[in-house]
């Protein structure tokens, strides 16, 4: 039995959850959204929370502040070149979100549009788009990204482009199959009898019904994009001079932080990557519940 007070307590940020079309009483989805919100705030206010992550710091005695263990002045210690790890971690959130969000939005936008068109119109439109998807699915992930970085330059937008090119087919395929079933539903036929045009049917009757699915793939794509960005930076193909979690790991690896036991250097960025990816997974679980309510049993 739930009392009204309990019901009220369980709905923390109902309007946000509703805007995202997530179930309001799903604790995992809430945790996922909360993690995203915290990281997003950190990314937005990184300037206030941290100092210049690339500044080389010195101790009071004039020596380079290299490999300083965590202290009050350096909450997470410093790197072997005397840079503040805490600041790098905070500013790195920005890179993660810029890449993660833009890539996710691009993936979802392209995938949803292609899925809608292919599923609704069928015929040659479907054939052309889905064969393109097959080709994109056949491209090996990291080699493609590395080659692209080599040709177009190691820039953030090229990383986003690579992720988009490689991830849209998954979204498009799932959206298409969903559209194929929706297209045969009575209310779509009813809309046609009511005189609705194809565009109106797609916009009013089909797109809203596949939105949770798009958002599900969006939340997965954020995690993927951040992982990919980290991998690319770790391999040294990321934008030079930028600060990101992947670049931090690369730095730590190259300077043998592990053998020195500088856990304060490589554990935090790794943990942040895991947290953001897991948050995406939690949110996708929430969407799963919206989409397939019977899975809960």
């Amino acid at each position, binding site marked *: 039995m739930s009392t009204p007070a309990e019901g009220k307590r369980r709905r923390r940020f109902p309007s946000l959850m509703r805007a995202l079309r997530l179930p309001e009483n799903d604790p995992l989805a809430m945790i996922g959204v909360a993690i995203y919100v915290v990281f997003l705030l950190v990314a937005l206010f990184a300037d206030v929370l941290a100092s210049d992550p690339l500044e080389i710091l010195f101790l009071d005695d004039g020596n380079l502040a290299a490999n300083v263990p965590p202290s009050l002045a350096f909450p997470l210690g410093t790197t072997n070149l005397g840079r503040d790890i805490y600041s790098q971690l905070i500013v790195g959130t920005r890179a993660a979100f810029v890449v993660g969000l833009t890539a996710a939005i691009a993936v979802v936008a392209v995938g949803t549009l292609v899925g809608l068109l292919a599923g609704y119109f069928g015929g040659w439109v479907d054939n052309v788009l889905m064969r393109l998807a097959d080709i994109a699915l056949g491209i090996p992930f990291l080699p493609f990204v590395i080659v692209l970085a080599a040709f177009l330059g190691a820039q953030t937008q090229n990383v986003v482009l690579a992720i988009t090119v490689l991830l849209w087919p998954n979204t498009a395929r799932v959206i298409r199959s969903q559209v194929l079933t929706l297209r045969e539903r009575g209310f779509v036929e*009813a809309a046609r*009898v009511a005189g609705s045009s194809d565009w109106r049917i797609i916009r009013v*009757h089909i797109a*809203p019904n596949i939105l949770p699915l798009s958002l599900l793939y969006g939340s997965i794509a954020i995690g993927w994009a951040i992982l990919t960005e980290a991998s690319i930076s770790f391999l040294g193909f990321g934008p030079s001079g930028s600060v990101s979690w992947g670049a931090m790991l690369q730095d730590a690896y190259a300077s043998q932080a592990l053998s020195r036991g500088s856990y304060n250097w490589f554990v935090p960025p790794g943990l942040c990557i895991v947290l953001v990816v897991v948050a995406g997974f939690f949110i996708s679980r929430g969407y799963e519940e919206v989409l397939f309510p019977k899975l809960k049993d």
Partner: protein
Amino acid sequence: MDAYVHVRGLSKAFPVRRGVGQVLRGEHPVVHAVRDLDFDIAQGETVGLLGESGCGKTTTGRLLLKLVEPTSGTARIGTRELAGLKGAALRDFRRDVQFVFQNPFDALNPRIQIGRSLAEPLINAGVPKAEHADRIRLVLERVRIKGVELLERFPHEMSGGQLQRIVLARALVLEPRFIVADEPVSMLDVSVRAGILNLMRDLQDSLGLTAIYISHDLALVRYVARRTMVMYLGSLVEDGPTEDVISRPLHPYTRALIAAVPLPRVSQTRDPLPLRPGTPDARKVGAGCAFVNRCPVAIAACTAERPPLVTLPGGRRVACHLMPAATQPRPPVTLSPAL
């Protein structure tokens, strides 16, 4: 003759999935869902289209609504030829010809409120927004739904009977002249069926609508339609005033259909159905009569040649080679009072 609905030679064949052999031989097998339909419906008339599952009655309805394109033949509704309608002319056509769906639980978008579903035809027809509320209120009155607060609800918050009234309201909101009702009550509880049917009948009388009711249910067709057309595997086999068709069926299929009506008492003994065992298969209809493999009275001509739909004195039509003989007295068909 100035019929409101005028159908000549209307056929629809759907392609069938091909086997490897058929692809190699370049064959394109089809299933004839509807073949060579000829009928007229007068202004204001109500016609029942009776037939078993898979006989093409739903496809006929979809052809009349221009939801599928015919393989051949023509259909005219009012002054409009269905072939080649598009753009503004198609939108005007949609104002005049509306559809009542079989499954009210599926006919409304689950994510939008009832009010928006009802406004959709108005938006598409370009009715000024200021008039929407009035037109919706009027149509809700017509389908006897009280309470404007229902408009804020979502379909899953309503009962089947209410939903079917809403579906009916959506069909009527543009004040159409012709309604195609495909099994309008088969998904509803028996307790609310009569209510919906009475409502539809009253509305038709008061609005002067022309209508075609598609159903497998003899009782329903008898209840709502003065005239009945019987379909079997894509073809019309019989057409005539409902009471005559039921009391004096001419086609052997119609006779079997009527003899199959359930009897109200279990103990009552019944004669075996006047049918030979077999299943109807639209892919295997040959040159002859579609009914030949189940017909108890088939003769050689039935396998060789398709019987034409001939008009008898008095206006009834039947497609059977035995027709002159079949009009001879035959054992009366007893109808159960449950009908």
